[in-house]
C-alpha cells in the first residue's frame, strides 16, 4: 500500500498545480543578534520552473554557500570597502554548522575551506513534493563584532542553488535549477534578471554599545566573490563532483 502511495505521489508531484504565491528560497530566521548561536533552516518554497508557471519540477537537492570573508565584496553604508571583514566581525570562520536531518533529503554534507572550516553545505536525495516546503536545518555559531568597530549590523548574502535535475552547467534552465544567487558575479550560477534579489540574507545586528565616535553606526554588507562561488557551489562527494555534471 505504501508503495502504491509512493508511486502515486511521484506521479502527482509532476502534475500538481502549485500555489501562485511562489516564495524564494530563504532562511527561516534571516535576522539574528551577535554572540548567540541560532538554529536555522534553509526553507525551499517551491520547485523549478519558469516564473509564473503552474507546473514545477520537484527539488532533489540544494547547494548552499556562505561568503567566506576572505575575498568577499564588502560595502559600508553602500560604499565599496577595501579593508577586511575582520575590521567588523572578528570570528567569521567556521560559522555555519549543518544539522543532520533526513526529514527532507537522505544525503547531506558540509563544504569546507582548505583549513576544514565549514563555508556551506548541501543536501539531496529525494524529490521534495512541490506542494510542500522543505526545511534544511543548520546552526549559525555565535558571531562577534570586532571591538572598536562602528558596524551596527552586517548582512551576509548566502548563495543557494536548488537542484531539480542533475545536469552539466550547459543544462541549467528554469526547469532544472532554482538560482538563488547574485545576478552579476559572472559565474555560471548567476541568477538571470536585472534585480540582485536572489541570495538569502542573514543579518547580524549588534547588541553591544557602539563606540561614542561611531554615531548611528555603519551598515555592512558582504557578498561572496565569483572565485568562491565557482569553487564552492559544486557538490563534491568523496572527492568526485556529482553536481553539476
Amino acid at each position, binding site marked *: 500500500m505504501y508503495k502504491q502511495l509512493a508511486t502515486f505521489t511521484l506521479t502527482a508531484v509532476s502534475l500538481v498545480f502549485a500555489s501562485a504565491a511562489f516564495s524564494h528560497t530563504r532562511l527561516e530566521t534571516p535576522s539574528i543578534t551577535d*554572540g*548567540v*548561536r541560532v538554529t536555522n533552516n534553509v526553507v525551499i518554497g517551491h520547485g523549478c520552473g519558469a516564473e509564473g508557471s503552474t507546473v514545477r519540477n520537484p527539488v*532533489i*537537492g540544494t547547494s548552499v554557500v556562505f561568503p567566506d570573508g576572505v575575498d568577499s565584496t564588502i560595502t559600508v553604508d553602500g560604499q565599496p570597502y577595501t579593508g577586511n571583514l575582520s575590521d567588523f566581525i*572578528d*570570528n567569521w*570562520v*567556521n*560559522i555555519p*554548522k549543518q544539522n543532520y536531518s533526513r526529514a527532507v*533529503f*537522505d*544525503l547531506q*554534507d558540509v563544504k569546507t575551506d582548505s*583549513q*576544514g*572550516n565549514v563555508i556551506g553545505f548541501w543536501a*539531496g*536525495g*529525494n*524529490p521534495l513534493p512541490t506542494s510542500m516546503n522543505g526545511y534544511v536545518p543548520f546552526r549559525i*555559531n*555565535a558571531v*562577534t563584532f570586532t*571591538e*572598536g568597530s562602528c558596524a551596527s549590523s552586517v548582512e551576509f548574502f548566502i548563495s543557494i542553488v536548488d537542484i531539480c*535535475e*542533475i*545536469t552539466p552547467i550547459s543544462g541549467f534552465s528554469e526547469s532544472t535549477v532554482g538560482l538563488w544567487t547574485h545576478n552579476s558575479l559572472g559565474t555560471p550560477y548567476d541568477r538571470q534578471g536585472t534585480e540582485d534579489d536572489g541570495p538569502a540574507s542573514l543579518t547580524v545586528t549588534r547588541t553591544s554599545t557602539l563606540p561614542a565616535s561611531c554615531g548611528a553606526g555603519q551598515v555592512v554588507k558582504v557578498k561572496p566573490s565569483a572565485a568562491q562561488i565557482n569553487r564552492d557551489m559544486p557538490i563534491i*562527494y*568523496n572527492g568526485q563532483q*556529482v553536481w553539476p555534471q
Partner: protein
Amino acid sequence: MKYKLFDKMAQSTLLIAALTFSGLSNAHEADATMDPTGTSASFTGFAVVTCTNEGNLPTSYLEASVKDTDVPQDNLLINLQVFHLGSGINRAVNTTDPVSGDDQFSPTVKVEAGNGTYYLIVNKTGVGPRSFSVSYHCKAADGTHTATDIGVYQFD
C-alpha cells in the same frame, strides 16, 4: 531519473560518515599533525574559539591543554598558547606537553575574559612531524561547560 544518482550515494555515504574522523567536528578536541613532511620548525596552528552563553549561563573562562600523540622523541615538544585581546583583558598563557608520546595532556591553563573570542596557537620546538590533540572548553564560573565553537585561521 537523474536524482537516482543521489540515491546510489546514500549507502556509501552513511558508511563513510561513520568511519571518517574530523578533527574540527570532534567535541572540543582538535586533532591534527603539524609539519607532516618534517621540514618546518616554525609550523604553527592558529585558531579562534568563540565562547558564549549556555542558556542563560555566561562563559567565565576558556581552559585548554595539549597532548602530543606521536611517538616519543627527544627535544621535540608541543606548546599551546591561549590568549585574549580586548574588553580590557589582554592576556596570554602557555602550556607545554612535557613528555611526548605518553598519552597525557599538558597542564590545563585558562584565560578569564567572559563571553567572546579567544585565540589558540599551537607550535613545536623543532623540525619534525608531531601529531597532537588540543582540548579546549569554555566554562562558566562554576565550571559548567558553555557554548564553544572553533575556527582555524592557519595550519602551516
